[in-house]
């Protein structure tokens, strides 16, 4: 069963919820190796998306929702995360196209497009201790799951698991991109806040997919 507009809207609501719940945690992670605003920035962004969901035209697609998230994040988040997540959702929307329902391979393609967009803008490589270190394992896991014929909800579940592992694995890394890079060796021993928020957003997607599959 593919993921439709209901799932997309639910994902956004769950995203706003989970980011708000982890606002302080993301601020704390960012305070340790950055400037302490990541949770505040992401929360501001997703709270700004929520009211706009009500204005979605009838017949909107998942791609429309992704586009709405993209433009709202770009115009409300600021910092590094705003343009990077904005690009991610924009590329995801483009990959989603006008499909009304997304199957496993479509989800894998969307995640790939999102990740590639972030890399194109931020020039980070694997191991630089950024959100890429959550997104790339997620893309790889999604690709593998989709290739194995897993359904869309399962693809997101695999992506979320991998993103969480990837976020955790940023802890020992020395940052080479973003503010944490200014700390040099002292950035090791802390989890990257952007990798953590990526994992949270993918878990929200998987939960929304599971709920929609269960419904």
């Amino acid at each position, binding site marked *: 069963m593919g993921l439709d507009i209901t799932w997309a809207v639910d994902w956004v609501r769950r995203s706003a919820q989970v980011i708000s719940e982890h606002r302080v945690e993301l601020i704390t992670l960012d305070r340790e190796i950055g400037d*302490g605003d990541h949770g505040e920035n992401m929360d501001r962004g997703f709270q700004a998306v929520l009211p706009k969901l009500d204005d979605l035209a009838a017949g909107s697609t998942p791609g429309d929702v992704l586009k709405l998230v993209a433009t709202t994040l*770009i*115009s409300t988040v600021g910092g590094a995360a*705003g343009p990077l997540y904005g690009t991610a959702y924009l590329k995801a929307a483009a990959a989603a196209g006008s499909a009304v329902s997304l199957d496993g391979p479509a989800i894998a393609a969307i995640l790939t497009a999102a990740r590639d967009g972030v890399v194109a803008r931020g020039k980070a490589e694997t191991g630089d201790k950024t959100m890429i270190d959550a997104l790339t394992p997620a893309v790889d896991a999604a690709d593998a799951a989709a290739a194995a014929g897993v359904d869309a909800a399962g693809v997101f579940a695999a992506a979320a698991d991998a993103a969480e592992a990837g976020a955790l694995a940023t802890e020992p890394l020395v940052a080479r*991109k973003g*503010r944490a890079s200014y700390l040099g060796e002292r950035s090791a021993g802390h989890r990257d806040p952007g990798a953590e928020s990526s994992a949270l957003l993918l878990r929200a997607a998987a939960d929304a997919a599971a709920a929609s599959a269960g419904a």
Partner: protein
Amino acid sequence: MKKIINDPKRVVDESVAGFGLAHADIVRVEFDPIHVVRADAPISGKVGIVSGGGSGHEPLHAGYVGFGMLDAAVPGAVFTSPTPDPIVAATKAVDGGAGVLHIVKNYTGDVLNFETAADLAAADGIEVRAVITNDDVAVKDSLYTAGRRGVAGTVLVEKIAGAAAERGDSLDAVVAVAERVNANARSMGLALTPCIVPHAGEPSFTLAEDEIEIGIGIHGEPGRERVKLEPADRLVDRLLEPILDDLPYERGERALLFVNGMGGTPQVELYLAYRRAAEVLEERGIQITRSLVGNFITALEMQGMSITLLKLDDEMVELWDAPVQTAALRWGR
């Protein structure tokens, strides 16, 4: 957290509103989206200069809007780069037909948001160029990193580029002098205390009573190294060494010496540090022909300072001395 604020979410709006009221002779404040422009913008035929970035570094950037310096400033949330919309609005507001320069401190967020804004403004037919400042020698630069941060040297770039634009230089010429200033400026900072971002509510780091952070930036982030507090003269030496290593001087070369407070350090300490810096530079045969001492680019209430040395040439001196009339920097009119 002890601050003279109402709601942490309204800090920037309310403060910028106060700034606009206090300096209505110099600036105009727009709120949707938020940006601060010269009262007489746009000026036909003049290159417009826009800067911006997270708030909390005041007087940067709004304090430098006015005759001879910036045409507009775009304040983001505290320590958070503004989004593209207000940057676009500011760019349009100051476009006098001769193109617009964006002066951007080198942080991923600032660079990306200004990039997007420049693309959007260009789509509206405005010629936009960007100069990225990156004067902080505390950060190791390399192809594979985010590169050096833009810190106090940014103030010098804004003043000198602003004077070039004010005298009628072309966009190419303003870009060239801004890049030359950035290329000749080196900075290094230290913190005695952290700062508290209003929405975070907790200090950006903790330090023992006898510890300081060396190599900090302007966002309350920890530095590269934590050392014991030492006498002022030794601290000044610690800041000057990497600056002079990175951009050596010949004897007799001229420099502007800029001792900047991080916001919470009293002037008495800044001038005391200046004394030592001047002494060291004199020993090395460097001529300090221009000076700046005070809180010009800050990290909220952080206690600490940075030292910036700018290698001067004749044109830079002339542009530095040119009249400027902003809330935070003013002379000649």
